């Protein structure tokens, strides 16, 4: 198997402790960064081509460079550890098993763009990751790695854990900032972008946990090394989280651009039992679904975009032929309509409507024209909302209909689900 970077220490006993981390060369990257000029750190990360691992794949170094050098208000780093996209479960392991890498990466990022405070916004349900982060921060503070004048460099860096309160939308960077400020988690209008007006009105960078965990490695081993780990413009490795009907679901760190087919059949041991692959969601539940004939694709930002889907968070959801596609998308629509913050009209009303229609189709009460209605609602939601949550529901609904339209039609014609009745716990109202 290929080189492990982020998950290299996952098997080491007590990998979350400072001693273990330092014995493995931990915090040397921070030491090195502090001897460089901040601009040099940004240039290095830019040169590595490190792209954001939260889903959008925006180049991290470029994001840092947008922060104005001089600012009236303090600058902040927000570490996005709200990991809420169904299918995604990578950041929790980084926090549980290698929290110091997250802290070290955050410290380097802060030094690079001139912030002195970082908040790690951890999904409310992540109890253990939160405890591990708190413990690691206490250790680091004790060792002078966090706090005033870290490593006698004259640079102040502090970091705090901010627990989320259970809203998927807080993974959206401006909603995260609102929530981090203590407000109801609702996305803000952009512009202004967080790099200009963010947390408490100060310039703010929001980075994913995985993104920051790469930074110490890039400092130590160089930009070129990192870039060469993956295909062009898609450097590094990627933590793929595979769930669903494979023999060995789990987190796998593989080079960017590993084939989806290889991941499913070689890495994860193929489909469970004697079953056949039916569909794959490649990058978390909001990314359009792929059919078995499409899985010979490199799992990187650009290759997936070419076939009309996204790498997203690298969360691969595998479904075999026992899966009812209508039921699967109904469940996802329920999630998104439930998680809509309720702020803007198309998302608030449209997602609930989509879910209601899907529940009806799956329940055998589908009507002529429902499918086109669904597509039109998606059309009216997508692109018209404040944040991408509306799109995150509309995209997979469109994708499922596009790839599996006959199955939807069958539900309507036969007035029911060919695979079986809708299990009771799912058959609730849109309220969820």
């Amino acid at each position, binding site marked *: 198997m290929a080189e492990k970077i982020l998950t290299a220490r996952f098997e080491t006993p007590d990998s979350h402790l400072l001693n273990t981390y330092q014995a493995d060369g931990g915090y040397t990257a921070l030491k090195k960064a502090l001897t460089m000029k901040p601009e040099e750190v940004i240039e290095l990360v830019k040169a590595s081509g490190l792209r954001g691992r939260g889903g959008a794949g925006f180049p991290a170094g470029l994001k840092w460079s947008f922060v104005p050098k001089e600012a009236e208000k303090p600058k902040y780093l927000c570490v996005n550890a709200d990991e809420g996209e169904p299918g995604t479960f990578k950041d929790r392991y980084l926090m549980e098993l290698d929290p110091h890498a997250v802290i070290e990466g955050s410290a380097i990022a802060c030094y690079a763009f001139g912030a002195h405070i970082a908040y790690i916004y951890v999904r409310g349900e992540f109890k253990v990751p939160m405890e591990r982060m708190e413990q690691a921060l206490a250790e680091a503070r004790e060792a002078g790695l966090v706090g005033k004048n870290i490593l006698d460099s004259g640079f102040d860096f502090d970091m705090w854990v901010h627990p989320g309160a259970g809203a998927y939308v807080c993974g959206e960077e401006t909603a995260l900032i609102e929530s981090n400020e203590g407000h109801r988690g609702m996305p803000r209008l952009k512009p202004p972008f967080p790099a200009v007006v963010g947390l408490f009105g100060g310039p703010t960078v929001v980075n994913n946990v995985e993104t920051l965990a790469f930074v110490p490695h890039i400092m130590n081993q160089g930009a070129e090394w990192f870039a060469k780990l993956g295909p062009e413009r898609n450097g590094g490795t990627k933590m793929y989280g595979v769930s669903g009907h494979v023999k060995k679901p789990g987190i796998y760190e593989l080079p960017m651009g590993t084939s989806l087919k290889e991941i499913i059949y070689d890495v994860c041991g193929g489909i469970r039992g004697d079953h056949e692959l039916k569909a794959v969601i490649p990058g978390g539940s909001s990314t359009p679904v792929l059919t078995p004939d499409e899985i010979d694709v490199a799992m990187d930002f650009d290759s997936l975009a070419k076939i009309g889907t996204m790498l997203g968070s690298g969360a691969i959801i595998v479904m075999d032929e026992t899966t009812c596609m209508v039921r699967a998308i109904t469940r996802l629509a329920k999630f998104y309509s439930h998680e809509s913050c309720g702020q803007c009209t198309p998302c608030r009303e449209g997602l609930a*409507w989509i879910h209601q229609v899907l529940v009806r189709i799956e329940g055998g009460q589908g009507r002529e024209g429902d499918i086109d209605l669904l597509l039109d609602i998606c059309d009216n939601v997508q692109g*018209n909302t404040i944040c991408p949550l509306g799109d995150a529901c509309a995209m997979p609904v469109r994708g499922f209909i596009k790839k599996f339209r006959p199955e939807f039609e069958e539900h309507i014609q036969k007035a029911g689900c060919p695979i079986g009745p809708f299990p009771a716990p799912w058959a609730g109202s849109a309220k969820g």
Partner: protein
Amino acid sequence: MPKLTIDGVEIEAAQGQSVLDAALAHGIHIPHLCYHPRLKVSGNCRMCLVEIEKAPKLQISCGTEARDGMVVQTKSEKVLKARQSVLEFMLINHPLDCPTCDQCGECKLQDYCSEHGQEESRYGEEKHGFDVLDVGPDISRNMNRCIHCTRCIRFLRDVAGSEEFTLYERGSHTTVGPYLEKALESPFSGNLAEVCPVGALTCKHFRFKGRSWLMEKSRTLCPGCARGCNAYAWTSKQEVLRLTPAENDFVNQSWLCNAGRASIAQIEAKNRILEPTRATAMEELAGVLRALIEKDEGEKVGVLASPRLTNEDLYLIRKLAREVIGTTHLAFVPGMSDDRPFGPLDTPLTEWFIRADPTPNSHGARDILHSTEHTENAFDLIEAAEKGEISSLLVFSEDPVTSFGDVDRATKALGQLDFLAVIDSHFSPTAELARLVVPEASFAEKDGTFTNEQGRIQRLRAAIPARGHSQSAWQTVTEVAKHLGTVWTFNSAAEVDREIASKIPGYQDLDFDTLPLEGLALVQADEADQAEAEESTPDQDKKE
């Protein structure tokens, strides 16, 4: 100044102005619901989406700054589809109860749906309903009609200075309501009826009383305090059904306080005076005065006038007292002074809006009554009555028995008078003591002007005919003066104003018929002096 093109028309926007503001300023209407010119932009309704060249998606015009060279489409196919879909989404869980909704006829959702909406809804699912929640005595909340625009939340938090409403729940179950289900406490909560663009928040006092298209509205003034808020009196069948704010950037912006709105209650109050004591009251009043004047005892007549009266009333009361009766015992009760800035300010309304002086025309009373050589306040008049310096007293819209502060002493002093007449709109302890009572019109039945605390002359307009035999004090005074043999020819407030303009310093520009909607700032005495001084001795001043 950025120049942009909207629907093919090139317009110039102010620096930093939004596309929506720029469009509205140039008469191009882009439908909008959550946007309110006096509230922070929230961009949540998505009604004002427009197509902007080079932008990958539709943009909200309320939250997009107008930039040089922008090409904006507000009626393209894409925009119209988005707009129609937003309306469709808004109606999904809306009860469509326009026939029984108080907002009907002045509902932006209703207007936009008839303009841009679909004939029939494609929504074939069950609508969900929200629980009823009482939010206090002034505002009725119907969550089913809410479009979640958050104008109410933003108004209370950012303008009224009392963060009382918030969002609850999420997604399509999101509700808007008070914290801890408490009743609204803001003295400005009444504004929510207008701030809410739909029928979710309506005025409880106006419930089911009238339809907007069956009412007439007159632009007038709120009589509730020295601010002189501009207001519309909405009438139907000669009844004032509600008072709502009228815009005035110099005075009240778009707001009116709850107490001001409630001032219409005085029109139909049980203690309204509608008829004089006797049909011959005017002759009697004139007779008493004539007797004193003939004995050359005009000085023994006291006259007390209220800052609740209009400038026209006050001017003719002064003219009667000075020129006809010949007394110097002319008094008024001065309003309380207010140390706080007058505004309008961007700070919460609680800090500046409602004035300490509860009368609408203290400034006018000072300007008009103080311009005589000798004016007293009400307390001096009570003392004058005790000392026997005055034997008769005319009281215009005041209640000295109560306002003097010592009811027994005031009652005793007034009891010593030979004659007491009260000209007022409502019965009071003083009126109970009077030999003659003459009815005065209420604020909603009078034409005239008030001068607010800031020195702005504004027009009060009669919204309904005067009740019973009531009339404005200037008419009563003119009638009395005619009985006393004068040749006064005042037939309207406008005619009185022509004399005010020539006699009262600062009022020289007053012209009743051409008074601007936003009022007229008084010509400041020091300004006039200064202008004169500069003209006459320019060099001398500079040498100083």
